[in-house]
């Protein structure tokens, strides 16, 4: 508790408070705009890590992450175009509510639900992360290897609609991660000295998220404008509160564990929350026509899962969403290695970050309720101006990593790859997680094998590792059986699919 209070002391300095405000404003803005997500924004802002102190930088990124989760709901409700994959489910009931003139209530329940879920979720991080870190710190290299392999497997095969596409993305990512001379010999450098140091993750992240998306939008530039539903001040009646608070809590209960598990992602818990609310509601006739429960539950779930994601990120150093992956890149840029020792080694930073999450959450509620009509105006920005700016910052960011023109060529090359991946509906997340975790996976493997002097059986010599492999096997069998039996019910549309809607 003392640590958390000290954290508040860190987070409440005027400078850090300013970064938190910038973070939530920026996060909400990019959350509102379809196609531009928190992952892209954090990737574009990675160069700030060179000049901003670590605590402030991470507070900024955490604010963007939380804000993005909130902002996505605005477009879902007013436009029926989810800004983020995590708010796809919100659009189901939210847009119907808005069409029947209850946009204000839908936005309000989304905002308050996000606040409730985010606060409970952050509280759970505070309680859980140090304990998990204490357990994880005792694990050896084989267990680490297993946990990372599990994370790669779940991100690739469990999330998303197509396993083969997931694995394509994963192996492209792992291949990019292999480039360089970390092992002493040259791998995939094609004899080029510029590739000898490996491809910087920053370049990959910016290329895949920013360049790929910008080229994709450029290819689909003209589209019929969508009808936005005008909205005033969000508010809720007594009845709306009564119908919302239980879905908020249930949504939080779904979201947090899914975020905290290495399986990660907000798509599954938001969908689970939606079907639960549909089953439990006292107003079944309203579902499909705009039931407030169907907005309250999923919106709480996606914020809780965003909070949950930070548990494996801080305690083990495992990213399970695209944004978490890019935040991890930012930490590595600072020379910080998240993991079990992280919380003990950097208490000021970690607790400052956690305290700032509470502050960011409160700021979101205070700012977003009155600002909803302003956010809706963002949708009138002409996309050529927007994406020209994004391309500019992307190039600047990639160039500032090493001040090499070669990085710009890489940026374009990988950006074209990102465009192709969107074109063929290949998910981006496995690629970026592969690039980040691949080298670390290899490191743990080498470490385990050098301790055991080359005996492969060391990989399953620790109980945790064995359990993890069993879980993997169950997931593999389970997902095959599930996909055999039924067509996947979850609307696992990604940001890219939502772009198709208005293309």
């Amino acid at each position, binding site marked *: 508790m003392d640590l958390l209070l000290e954290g508040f002391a860190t987070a409440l300095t005027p400078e850090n408070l300013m970064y938190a405000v910038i973070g939530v404003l920026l996060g909400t803005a990019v959350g509102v705009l379809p196609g531009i997500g928190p992952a892209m924004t954090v990737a574009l802002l990675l160069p700030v890590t060179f000049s901003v102190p670590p605590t402030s930088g991470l507070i900024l990124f955490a604010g963007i992450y939380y804000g993005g989760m909130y902002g996505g709901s605005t477009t879902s409700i007013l*436009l029926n*175009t989810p800004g983020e994959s995590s708010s796809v489910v919100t659009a189901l009931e939210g847009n119907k509510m808005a069409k029947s003139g209850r946009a204000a209530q839908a936005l309000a329940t989304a905002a308050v639900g996000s606040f409730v879920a985010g606060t409970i979720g952050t509280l759970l991080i505070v309680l859980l992360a140090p304990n998990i870190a204490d357990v994880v710190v005792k694990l050896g290299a084989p267990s680490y290897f297993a946990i990372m392999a599990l994370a790669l497997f779940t991100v690739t095969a469990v999330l998303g609609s197509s396993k083969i596409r997931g694995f394509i993305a994963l192996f492209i990512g792992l291949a990019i991660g292999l480039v360089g001379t970390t092992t002493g010999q040259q791998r995939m450098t094609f004899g080029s000295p510029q590739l000898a140091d490996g491809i910087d993750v920053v370049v990959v992240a910016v290329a895949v998220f920013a360049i790929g998306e910008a080229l994709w939008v450029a290819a689909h530039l*003209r589209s*019929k*404008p969508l009808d936005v539903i005008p909205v005033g001040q969000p508010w809720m009646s007594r009845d709306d509160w009564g119908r919302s608070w239980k879905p908020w809590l249930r949504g939080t209960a779904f979201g947090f564990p899914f975020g905290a598990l290495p399986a990660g992602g907000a798509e599954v818990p938001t969908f689970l929350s939606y079907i639960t609310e549909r089953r439990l509601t006292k107003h079944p006739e309203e579902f499909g026509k705009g039931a407030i429960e169907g907005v309250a539950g999923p919106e709480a779930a996606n914020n809780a899962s965003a909070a949950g994601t930070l548990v494996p990120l801080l305690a083990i150093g495992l990213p399970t969403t695209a944004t978490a992956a890019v935040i991890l890149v930012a930490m590595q840029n600072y020379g910080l290695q998240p993991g079990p020792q992280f919380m003990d080694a950097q208490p000021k930073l970690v607790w400052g970050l956690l305290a700032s999450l509470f502050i960011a959450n409160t700021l979101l509620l205070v700012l977003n309720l009155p600002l909803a009509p302003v956010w809706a105006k963002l949708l*009138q920005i002409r996309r050529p101006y927007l994406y020209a700016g994004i391309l500019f910052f992307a190039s600047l960011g990639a160039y500032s990593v090493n001040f090499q023109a070669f990085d710009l060529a890489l940026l374009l090359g990988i950006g074209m790859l990102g465009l192709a991946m969107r074109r063929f509906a290949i998910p981006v997340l496995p690629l970026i997680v592969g690039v980040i975790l691949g080298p670390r996976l290899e490191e743990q493997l080498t470490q385990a094998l050098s301790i055991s002097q080359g005996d492969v059986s060391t990989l399953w010599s620790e109980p945790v590792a064995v359990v993890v492999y069993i879980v993997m096997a169950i997931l593999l069998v389970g997902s095959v059986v599930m996909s055999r039996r039924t067509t996947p019910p979850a609307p696992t549309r990604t940001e890219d699919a939502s772009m198709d809607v208005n293309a």
Partner: protein
Amino acid sequence: MTIVIAYGTDQYGRAALAHGAAQAELRREDLVVVNATRGDSLVDRRYADDAEIERIKAELQTLGLSVSMRHDVVPDVADAVIEVAEQVDATLIVVGVKHRSPVGKALLGSVAQRVILDAECPVLAVKPDPLADTV
């Protein structure tokens, strides 16, 4: 003979519509209403939805006018208006004009200005007047 109205869903568009309809009644000419967008922003407030286009058409027809609507996503709105005017051999184009700050003029193009300068037929530039705003 035809009058072309450049319409956008704001007070300037409605002013153009009102004056255009008045001219058409006076001169016994047909009307073509153009409502176009570049479609490069997600939401364009000056682009009418289909229901509104139908409503405007119905209202103009009750005035006894022969009306056709052009409702489309185009590369350039001003060019689209002029192109329609040339197609139908228009005798008049009606546009709504609004005050703009010097900065706004410097940064953004003006559909009305381009139509006024580039059109081959006479152009009637109108301003919103609450009393004339009948449609």
